[in-house]
């Protein structure tokens, strides 16, 4: 059995890339990586440590046109005779994996959170995180899109060979006009630590204390839906049923009551800390640690405690 992993190495190798290679290695069989966006061969070779036996790269193809990238991956999948193709379940995979599913007639498991069970079925989130489902692929080939932060990358080998793709490329039908990437911000879906706040913060001018805590922890910031809807925070920070679903190691929620729609987006978090003045807030039922108190007092104290801890331990 042979597995092909797609990686977008535009900005180097992120943790999600190491996760998907580790996941593929654990499936058993030979693992080939197809990487686009970078030709840093030294860096790509390190994927061998996580289980890849070969990396094929094509620096000229970006992730901008799903159609072009799908053609490329399909070509490599056929050449490598891949039975399984693995993606990290990010915005690129959401565009490409479904196309590839049709092109190769390979059943797609979106947002896998575990390795396949003994019967081959794979656990995914359904109902926006309110439940889990086990999906079984009935076609010969399959595609798995792994939710970031679902498994830990692990080193099992040494560097592997890296070679350039030498096939025909199609042209991109998407014309990029501009790209904006906020400097230094940690993308929410792959963040391991997240600090989030809601209407309890009373206004956008009070977000400084949320950002301070996030900075002290090295965390991403997030918010509840009402806060995004009234424009206090950008939409991409909205976590919940109709926003982003996340599964960080630590989710700290301040001034969020914990409506069922919000919980749906965060209950995959390993540890949840809830700060709320209302002891009856439903969020406490989903929390591991609760602080009944005013976010305006608790957040600065927590930030100070985190800074003290970091100063003592690092």
């Amino acid at each position: 059995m042979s597995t092909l992993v797609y990686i977008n190495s535009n900005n180097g190798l992120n943790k999600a890339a190491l996760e998907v290679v580790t996941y593929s290695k654990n499936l058993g069989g030979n693992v080939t990586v197809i990487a686009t966006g970078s030709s840093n061969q030294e860096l790509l070779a390190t994927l061998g440590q996580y289980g890849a036996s070969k990396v094929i790269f094509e620096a000229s193809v970006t992730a901008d046109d799903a159609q072009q990238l799908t053609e490329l991956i399909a070509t490599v999948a056929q050449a490598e005779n891949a039975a399984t193709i693995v993606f990290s379940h990010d915005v690129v995979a959401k565009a490409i994996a479904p196309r590839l599913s049709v092109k190769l007639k390979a059943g797609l498991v979106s947002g896998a959170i575990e390795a396949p069970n003994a019967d081959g079925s794979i656990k995914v989130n359904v109902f926006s995180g309110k439940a889990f489902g086990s999906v079984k692929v009935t076609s010969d080939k399959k595609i798995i899109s792994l939710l970031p932060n679902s498994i830990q990358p692990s080193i099992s080998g040494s560097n592997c060979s890296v070679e350039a793709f030498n096939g025909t490329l199609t042209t991109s039908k998407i014309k990029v006009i501009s790209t904006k990437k906020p400097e230094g911000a940690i993308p929410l879906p792959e963040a391991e630590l997240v600090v989030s706040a809601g209407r309890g913060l009373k206004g956008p001018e009070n977000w400084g204390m949320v950002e301070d805590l996030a900075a002290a922890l090295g965390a991403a910031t997030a918010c509840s839906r009402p806060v995004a809807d009234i424009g206090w925070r950008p939409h991409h920070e909205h976590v919940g049923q109709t926003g982003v679903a996340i599964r960080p190691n630590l989710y700290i929620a301040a001034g969020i009551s914990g409506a069922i729609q919000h919980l749906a987006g965060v209950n995959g978090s390993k540890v949840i800390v809830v700060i709320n003045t209302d002891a009856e807030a439903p969020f406490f039922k989903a929390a591991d640690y609760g602080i009944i108190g005013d976010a305006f007092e608790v957040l600065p104290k927590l930030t100070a405690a985190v800074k003290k801890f970091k100063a003592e331990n690092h």
Partner: protein
Amino acid sequence: MNILVGIFVLNLQPIEKKSKMKILVCISKSPDTTSKIAFTDNNTKFDENGVQYIVNPYDEWYALVRALELKETIGGNVTIVTVGNAADEAIIRKALAIGADEAVRIDADPTDAYYTAMQIADYAKSNGFDLVLTGKETINYNGSQVGGMIAEAMDLPFVSLATKLDAAGTTLTLEREIVGGVQVVEVQTPAVISCAKGMAEQRIPNMRGIMAARTKPLQVIAPVAVETLTTYTTYTMPNAKSACKLIDPSNMDELVELLHNEAKVI
């Protein structure tokens, strides 16, 4: 004479400029966002008991409403399509009440994303749409699959997770999410777009819309023969959390200590 010519030009110009757009909006049903989720038949089926179905919010709030806005500014026609059985006509009428012109129901269970996408693609291929819109995902299966699958089956460009969409002639200008940022792109019609938050605002149907929806055309067509590629074997509920440990708000050092030594997350 001059005046006459002037009027002639004035009358003609706006008609020529209008690039009437034929838009297909794919809608799916999903349980109301406040629904309690449970399963039956030995955890192999979603328990529909007491569940109120709505138009999947991404399909309605963003894809459908933006399609209507485009129609209102540049002219055109908005068709909605769903794969489902007769009971789903309630959500179809809702979408028509919001303002879609006509509806198509492909008479089949939407067994998996591939099956659903192939049905819609088959219908869309033979009906010459300029634009096919989907929501970014459903809130029940969250697969984000159908839009991309339709695009591949129709051999069309696909822009996913678009947060803005404008059209001028055959050029679409879109803003979309990319890993760690946003991007503005252009693509030529026909194209398939999946729509995310930011693209439009929810519209509440008014009484006139609701009345008009009753008589708008709803065409029921038979499905084409397509296999499925995936199946859900079982469902499980998350484990209940053990009791929440309360920490004194004045003792944040204790919380940090617990997060480090007990929870091991920092």
